[in-house]
């Protein structure tokens, strides 16, 4: 049997981490774009639009991400396409992230005082202009900490894509474990790598939040 040094293990895990990072970025950015569309639907004046966004969000927040991955993987296959794991993973994670980001941002928009809507309306602005020039610039400030915080959920969410066969950090952990028979060390290292990715984001989210609260109190 070949002996694996810690360094061998770590090198293999770190190589796979690139895919965790790439998938996280794609999911977060794609989810942000779809989430923005959801946000506009969710606060639209049209009842049907609000209902669509509401049910979308409830569906994606009310079912396991793992099931969403399975359905993307096998469901897309029904259209006769041979779905590669990365595609199913990307699609599912984007749609899932969008639901959470849309809901987070809705909270931020709703936290803006009603007077801001009224004042801008009384100046003759249309709904999109109100959003663009008055509401979003203010909502974006308070949206930063929870949005950064959610990016941690996205990174952790990518771990599930190993189950449909996408080779990223978690999958690499399993593969390396099967080769080395050192689950304690390997999964310990995998956990530490995730921690190294997530913890700085968690911490900055907390710090940003605290800063925002202080700024708020000084107003």
């Amino acid at each position: 049997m070949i002996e694996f040094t810690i360094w061998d293990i770590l090198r293999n895990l770190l190589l796979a981490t690139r895919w965790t990072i790439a998938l996280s970025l794609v999911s977060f950015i794609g989810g942000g774009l779809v989430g923005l569309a959801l946000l506009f639907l969710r606060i639209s004046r049209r009842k049907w639009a609000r209902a669509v966004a509401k049910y979308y969000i409830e569906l994606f927040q009310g079912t396991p991400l793992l099931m969403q991955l399975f359905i993307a993987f096998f469901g897309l296959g029904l259209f006769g396409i041979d779905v590669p794991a990365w595609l199913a993973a990307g699609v599912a994670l984007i749609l899932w992230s969008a639901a959470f980001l849309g809901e987070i941002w809705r909270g931020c928009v709703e936290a803006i005082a009603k007077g801001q809507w009224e004042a801008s309306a009384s100046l003759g602005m249309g709904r999109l202009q109100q959003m663009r020039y008055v509401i979003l610039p203010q909502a974006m400030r308070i949206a930063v900490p929870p949005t950064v915080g959610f990016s941690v959920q996205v990174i952790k969410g990518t771990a599930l894509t190993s189950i449909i066969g996408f080779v990223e950090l978690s999958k690499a952990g399993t593969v390396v474990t099967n080769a080395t028979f050192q689950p304690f060390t390997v999964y310990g290292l995998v956990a530490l790598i995730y921690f190294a990715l997530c913890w700085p984001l968690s911490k900055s989210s907390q710090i940003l939040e605290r800063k925002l609260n202080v700024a708020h109190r000084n107003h």
Partner: protein
Amino acid sequence: MSLIEITDVRKSFGPNEVLKGINLDVEPGEVIAIIGKSGSGKSTLLRCINGLETISDGSISVAGAQLLDDEAHLKALRLKVGMIFQQFNLFPHLTAGGNVMLSQMVVKKTPKPEAEEMARKMLERVGLDHKFDAYPDELSGGQQQRVAIARALAMQPIALLCDEITSALDPELVAEVLAVVRELAAEGMTLLMVTHEMRFARDVCSRVVFMHQGRVHEIGPPEEVFANPQTPELKQFLGVH
């Protein structure tokens, strides 16, 4: 034809009828004070005139144009009628100048240099040209309210609605805001203001409207309304017996 014609306006929130048939015609250049107890529907009336609330029944027209509930009509109306709020409602992410420029550029598509020139002129008019670059949280309440007035004036409205614009101010800051309003009145601006400043109403207004339980209970020139109230409700409100 009157500038603002309010005819049989009714407004309900659910089962609660807040305006129960309001009739009021406002002539150009008139300054009207609306007084009455809290909850009598004064704010709701102003908000209906600005289209912030949709009326349940009746009609409102401004300069001959009917108030209809679609975005194009609302915009047209709001270009004619400005509104000042009790809580100022300045945009906190913009400077005083930015507050005054924004809607000119966005709504009227005024080019930036002209919008800025107008903003400086309007801020000067309310005595705040030196605060062009200050953010709202760097201004006192009185200054913020004056910026709000400049912001509304920059849209060149033909009438202004003022809802208790001095009620959120510390007593020593009330006078500077009222001085601005007094000047506007003298220049011939049409004003509808909800106010608790009875002296100001007596000195400046052409007519006083006393609202009670969603109706115009008494109306007349200030000398009559204040000196010779007809109804027991107004007498009680004014504290005369």
